[in-house]
């Protein structure tokens, strides 16, 4: 899908995949491993989105969003440069948090996360995926257990209460991708989180 070129935004033409079928395939595989093995930190490449988006957030948007998904830009991510880049490379309609299929921004900007769609009891898949920009990703911090984790692992989550509340809604709930630079980690709703 090619959106019409926005005026005065030559930069918006840059920073997409140059070889979309291959780059999106490799990136999806990393995202799949990240979501299927919560807490594992993977690397992705190929996108050069405008500030303040990280490479990994840009890659996740290019791989997963398109004109059929509603996207919420939160906080500083909701700027002209990002809007133009999304319009040109992705074509996702922008929307408010409550209606979003995908949302991107810092944890503070996404708050309160209870706004996001958690799916319906008969269609739990109709829920939001949050792309949370963080400064860094390390396997240190709250303990994660659940599907995709052999025994336990650890990840520097921005907080635990919101994810515990989200887990309590299972099988409803939102799903989360954390992004920092070119690193990405997943935290599906199924993961149990404990502060340690």
């Amino acid at each position, binding site marked *: 899908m090619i959106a019409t070129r926005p005026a005065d935004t030559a930069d918006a033409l840059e920073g997409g995949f140059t070889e979309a079928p291959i780059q999106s*395939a490799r990136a999806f595989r990393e995202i799949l491993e990240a979501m299927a093995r919560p807490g594992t930190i993977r690397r992705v490449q190929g996108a050069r989105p405008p500030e303040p988006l990280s490479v990994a957030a840009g890659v996740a948007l290019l791989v997963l969003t398109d004109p059929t998904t509603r996207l919420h830009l939160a906080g500083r991510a909701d700027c002209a440069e990002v809007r133009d880049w999304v319009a040109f490379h992705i074509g996702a309609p922008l929307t408010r948090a409550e209606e979003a299929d995908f949302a991107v921004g810092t944890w503070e900007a996404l708050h309160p996360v209870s706004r996001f769609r958690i799916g319906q*009891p008969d269609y739990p898949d109709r829920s939001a995926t949050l792309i949370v920009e963080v400064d860094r990703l390390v396997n240190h911090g709250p303990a994660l257990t659940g599907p995709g984790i052999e025994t336990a692992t650890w990840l520097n989550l921005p907080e635990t209460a919101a994810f515990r509340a989200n887990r309590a809604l299972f099988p409803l709930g939102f799903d989360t991708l954390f992004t920092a630079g070119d690193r990405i980690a997943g935290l599906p709703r*199924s993961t149990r989180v404990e502060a340690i």
Partner: protein
Amino acid sequence: MTEHIEAGAYTFAYLDEQTKRMIRRAILKGIAVPGYQVPFASREMPMPYGWGTGGVQVTAACLVPEDRLKVIDQGADDTTNAVSIRRFFQRTAGVATTEATTEATVIQTRHRIPETPLKAGQILVYQVPIPEPLRFLEPRETETRKMHELEEYGLMHVKLYEDIARHGQIATSYAYPVKVEGRYVMDPSPIPRFDNPKLSGNPAIQLFGAGREQRIYALPPWTEVVSLDFDDHPFQTSKAPHDCDLCGAQDSYLDEVITDDQGGRMFVCSDTDFCEGRRAKGHAGRLGGDQKSSKTFANSFEGIWPGTEGAR
């Protein structure tokens, strides 16, 4: 099928980018809610339904150029179905292929889980004909959806218990229903129940695709998968009460193969890669290890064990 070319790009693995994004989103939601069937808009594929179009679409959405793809049909790599799917991805994705379970990064399967244990980094993609385990109890989709929502799985237990009343044991031999992480009842596809224990705690990612029924579901690694049973009739696997006639394996799932028109028959591993690997290491069964290949026979006969219960 119209080719959708994006930003001057070519297609990789047959499907256009927008279709793959839709399938990839469904796969991630399936991973997030293990055992729940995610609807997706299945595409026309250049092969008929029943040839694994759901599995093919899931595989297409997951493949990378670096993959080594293995395709098995009831355990064998060389049936018409397996060969044509393998060739399809060689042609459309340029991926390498293999028959060795240990070397494969993506394995698409119909009706079996390989005997050789899978490992992290591998993806097992199942072809699924009927994804809804409650379908034979309740034909209406709105009703089965409500049953999953409310965890109303009593009817399923009643059906299994009727088996016990009638046969003295649970007679369901294929597509034996399982419960995933204590929540969703799931159809593991028509694998023999011998394979059910391999579903649970598996280090690989397991993805299920139903093309005609337009459903994708998933088991992340290490997911707990429990076969439904009863306190007084615990779940048991079953297989033919024989060793493999070619490699002597005592613990693999066997096909009964007719060898001649005099009533001659033999039992051979359904997993041909496993059987050949054992014979290459010098193991031999009743008919020795130097027979050509179990596949050659297996292909002449839709050789699935007909469900006689020889629990062992």
